[in-house]
């Protein structure tokens, strides 16, 4: 517990120090155009929480971004677990799916953006798709590794206790892969958030990425910095929420503690 207090203390100290350095740097003549005053950025964020920037206030933008991540990510998680399992647990599944997996994996999610726009236009569907495809391969990789690394002796133990072959997957393989699947879901969420920012920066009329790109278009450094901080804070929140969920669901695992 005191370890945690110490950590919080140092976090406060170092982040305050960073803000102070930032403040004094922004006061220098040569930095004026590059670095806005942190107080202005803070004011902008507070004002944005109440009155709208563009069409929505900050909460509205965050909600838009989160809803995009939610749709793409949920789809990717479900498909990733199903397809990854099929690829890892059945030989035929592996033979069918793996070639496509190997072909698609080295293509970064962002490289899909132009094709997604050609396919789905510039509305929500193309953003869902980009987030989906970027997250899918990450989750699939982890599900595949997790399912493959199931302890063969545990399977033997389950058989000897009378589990039938068709019960093995759901009663032994999948639960034993949960920690690894979870780490995939975690990394995937971070990637989904980053991809969302990219997608919004390239084409959108709202969202956290839009705030940044609008700041650039209107040469408003304060808004750019505010947008970046917003993205960081929400990202941090997502990561923490995921860790909390893991600790709840994987209590049996050392990693979960």
């Amino acid at each position, binding site marked *: 517990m005191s370890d945690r207090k110490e950590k919080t203390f140092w976090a406060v100290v170092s982040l305050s120090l960073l803000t102070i350095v930032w403040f004094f740097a922004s006061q220098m003549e040569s930095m004026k155009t590059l670095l806005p005053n942190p107080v202005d950025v803070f004011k902008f964020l507070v004002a944005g929480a109440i009155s709208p920037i563009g069409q929505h206030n900050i909460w509205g933008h965050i909600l838009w971004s989160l809803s995009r991540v939610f749709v793409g990510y949920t789809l990717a998680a479900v498909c990733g677990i199903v397809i990854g399992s099929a690829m890892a647990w059945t030989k035929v599944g592996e033979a069918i799916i793996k070639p496509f997996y190997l072909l698609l994996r080295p293509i970064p999610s962002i490289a899909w953006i132009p094709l997604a726009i050609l396919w789905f236009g510039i509305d929500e569907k193309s953003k869902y798709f980009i987030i989906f495809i970027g997250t899918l391969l990450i989750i699939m990789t982890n599900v595949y590794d997790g399912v493959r690394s199931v302890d063969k002796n545990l399977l*033997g133990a389950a058989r*000897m*206790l009378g589990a039938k072959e068709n019960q093995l997957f759901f*009663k032994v393989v999948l639960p034993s892969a*949960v920690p690894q699947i979870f780490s995939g879901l975690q990394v995937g969420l971070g990637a989904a958030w980053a991809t969302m920012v990219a997608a919004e920066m390239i084409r959108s009329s709202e969202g956290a990425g839009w705030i940044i790109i609008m700041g650039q278009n209107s040469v408003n450094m304060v808004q750019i910095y505010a947008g970046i901080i917003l993205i960081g804070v929400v990202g941090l929140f997502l990561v923490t929420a995921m860790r909390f969920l893991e600790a709840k669901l994987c209590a049996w695992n050392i990693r979960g503690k």
Partner: protein
Amino acid sequence: MFLKIDNINKTFTSEAGNNEVLKNVHFDIKENEFVVIFGPGQCGKSTLLNIIAGLEKESSGNVYLEDKKVTKPGPDRAVVYQNILLFPWLTVMGNVEFGPKSRGIKKSIRQKDAQEYIDLVGLNGFEKSFPVKLSGGMKQRVGIARAYCSKPKVMLMDEPFGALDAQTRYLMQEEVVRISAHEKRTVLFVTNNIEEAIYLADRIIVMTNCPSTIQKEYVIDLPRPRDYTSEEFLRLRQEISSIVEFTR
């Protein structure tokens, strides 16, 4: 005959050559008999148990349980492993009720049953604990309860206490005697510890090392609980030790 091991041979074939581990192994076990297979070295004993469990295939010979040939694993033969192999994502209760649950037995019935075995092995109060929180001895108690709870006809115990420290090992031996007096079962117990063999067995089958064959059998009719230091115990120990060749 209840359990018949009929002339089993087993050879592992690999690129490095053939490795003969079991040779003409042939014996019978009566119902509710506690048989210990004792022998030095790593060779053959566990393989024999796996063949009886149906987890490995013999090269030749047959295993019959109540005159039915054994071909695959089944809940009539439960195994207690040295490395225990609990399901880490299940609680103690979840592990013990795994077998009955797989067979679709109703929750109220199987949990009542499982509770009895958890009590029997002395883990009352730990039903909701996960294996990661338990000590080695406690884990093996769960392993034993889990095996009993699937109501096997034969218990196969593969050096179950091999990974425990000496003190816990003695304690667990006493526990096995107490539990098997309470729950009569046919037990086939593999060990390389001579004291453990004499302490537990109705009958000891001494096996040689690589390829394993049956060297000699001893019927142990000392009254239970047995005393490690009694004259009779020490005499048996001396005698069995003298015929076993320990390879270096």
